[in-house]
C-alpha cells in the first residue's frame, strides 16, 4: 500500500522535522503532513542565537536545513494542506487530507506546535496588514513618526514596544491586568522610555477604519467604560496557544489544551506520541522541541518494531 507509512508526523516545525530526520535515517517509512509553512515558528524568528553549534542563523535557514536533512534521508514532507479527519483509536491510524487523500500508519507523532494568540476583537481580521501587525521586525518601518499601540504585558510585548520606538513617535502599551508578567528589566526599560505610555486594566474591543485602521475602542476592565482612540497601528503580542483544537475529545489534553505525555512522549492512546510546543511543558524553545522530537521518534520506532515482531511471531505460530 503506497499510502501506508510506519509513522505519520503531523506538523513540520522543529519537533516534527527532527522526528522526520531520526525516523527516516533509521529506515522507518515516514510522512510529515503540515498545515502551514515548513519550519513552523522557526520561520517567524529573524535570528536564532541560542541553538548550540550554530552561532547565528535565521529561523528560515535553520528550518530549510532541517527540511533538506529529513528529505535526504527519504522522509516525505507535504505542506500547506488541511487535515480534515483524524482517526487515532484503532491499530491502524488514518489521516484524511483536504477531504480526499487518505494516509494510514502504524503510529502517529503529533507536533502541531503553537501560534500567536489573536485578540478576537471586532475587525481584527479585516485590518491585518492594514494597521494590525503581529511582527515588529517585519512591519515596524511602516510606522515611522506614527502613533501606535502595543497590546500585551509579557516579555515580547515590552521588548517589542521599546524596539518600535525606533520608528513610532508614540507607543501606548495596553494591558488587561494592573501589573506586567514580563521580567523586571523589560518593564524598567519600557518605563524609562519617554515615547512609551501605558493604559492598564484595559482591552481592545473593536478595530475601526475604512481602507485602513483609524481607531480602536478600548474597554476598562474594572469600570467597563469604553473610550475610542485614534491610532495608526496596533502590534499584538499576547502570547501563544497550542494548535490542538482538532484533538479535543480525541486525545488527553490538560486545562490549557496542551497534550499530556509521559517521559517517552507517549499520549494516552497506544501508538500515538506527541512532541514540541503543543505538549504540556514549561520551556518552549527550538532546543526543547528538537529534544522532544528525538524522543518521540525513538519511541515511535520502538513501537513499530514491537508491532512487526508481534506480527511475525503470530505468523510463525499460525
Amino acid at each position, binding site marked *: 500500500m503506497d499510502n501506508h507509512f510506519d509513522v505519520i508526523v503531523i506538523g513540520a516545525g522543529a519537533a516534527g522535522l527532527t522526528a522526520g530526520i531520526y525516523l527516516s535515517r533509521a529506515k522507518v517509512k515516514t510522512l510529515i503532513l503540515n498545515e502551514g509553512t515548513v519550519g513552523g515558528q522557526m520561520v517567524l524568528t529573524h535570528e536564532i542565537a541560542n541553538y548550540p553549534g550554530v552561532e547565528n542563523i535565521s529561523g528560515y535557514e535553520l528550518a530549510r536545513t532541517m527540511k533538506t536533512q529529513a528529505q535526504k534521508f527519504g522522509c516525505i514532507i507535504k505542506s500547506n494542506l488541511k487535515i480534515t479527519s483524524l482517526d487515532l483509536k484503532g491499530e491502524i491510524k488514518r489521516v484524511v487530507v483536504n477531504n480526499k487523500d487518505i494516509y494510514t500508519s502504524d503510529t502517529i507523532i503529533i507536533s502541531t506546535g503553537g501560534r500567536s494568540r489573536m485578540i478576537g476583537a471586532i475587525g481584527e481580521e479585516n485590518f491585518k496588514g492594514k494597521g494590525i501587525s503581529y511582527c515588529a521586525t*517585519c512591519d515596524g518601518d511602516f510606522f515611522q513618526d506614527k502613533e501606535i499601540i502595543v497590546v500585551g504585558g509579557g516579555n515580547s510585548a515590552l521588548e517589542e514596544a521599546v524596539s518600535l520606538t525606533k520608528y513610532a513617535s508614540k507607543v501606548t502599551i495596553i494591558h488587561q491586568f494592573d501589573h506586567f508578567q514580563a521580567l523586571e528589566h523589560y518593564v524598567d526599560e519600557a518605563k524609562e522610555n519617554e515615547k512609551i505610555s501605558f493604559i492598564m486594566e484595559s482591552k481592545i474591543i473593536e478595530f475601526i477604519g475604512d481602507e485602513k485602521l483609524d481607531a480602536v475602542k478600548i474597554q476598562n476592565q474594572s469600570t467597563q467604560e469604553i473610550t475610542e482612540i485614534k491610532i495608526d497601528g496596533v502590534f499584538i503580542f499576547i502570547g501563544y496557544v497550542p494548535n490542538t483544537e482538532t484533538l479535543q475529545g480525541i486525545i488527553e489534553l490538560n486545562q490549557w489544551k496542551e497534550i499530556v505525555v509521559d517521559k517517552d512522549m507517549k499520549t494516552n492512546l497506544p501508538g500515538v506520541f506527541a512532541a514540541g510546543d503543543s505538549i504540556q511543558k514549561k520551556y518552549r524553545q527550538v532546543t526543547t522541541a528538537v529534544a522532544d522530537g528525538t524522543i518521540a521518534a525513538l519511541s515511535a520506532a520502538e513501537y513499530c518494531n514491537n508491532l512487526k515482531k508481534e506480527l511475525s511471531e503470530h505468523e510463525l505460530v499460525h
Partner: protein
Amino acid sequence: MLKTNLTHVLSEKDHAELLQNNENVMICCGRMGPMCIPVYEVMEELEGEYKNIKFADMEFDSPDAKIIRNLPEAKSFQGLPFTVYYKNGKVVKATSSIQSRDQVTAILDEHFKQPVNETTQN
C-alpha cells in the same frame, strides 16, 4: 536577490517584460521575513499546478520595487509582503501581509481561470 526558487524581478524593465510576455502574473514583493516566506512557499508549490500563471518575486527594498510599492492598489498597505496579481498587464487584485494557500488559490481561481483541459471537453 530573494532566496526563493521563483522568477526574480530585479528591475522595472524585468517587471515590464514579465507583464508583456505573460497574460497572468502573480508577484510577491517582500523580504526574507516571517510574513513573506510562507507566501513564497505557497507560490513555489502552486507553480506546478497553475501552468497558466507566471509566479515571481521582487525585493521590497530595491529602488525599482517602487513600481509595486507605489501602486494605487497598495496605498493602504502597512504589512509585508505586497502581493499583486496582474491580468494582461493590469492589476486585478492586491493583498497585504501573510496569506494562506487557500487565500491565494481563491484569488487565482477567481481571476485566472485555468483553461479547460481539451481531453475533458465534450
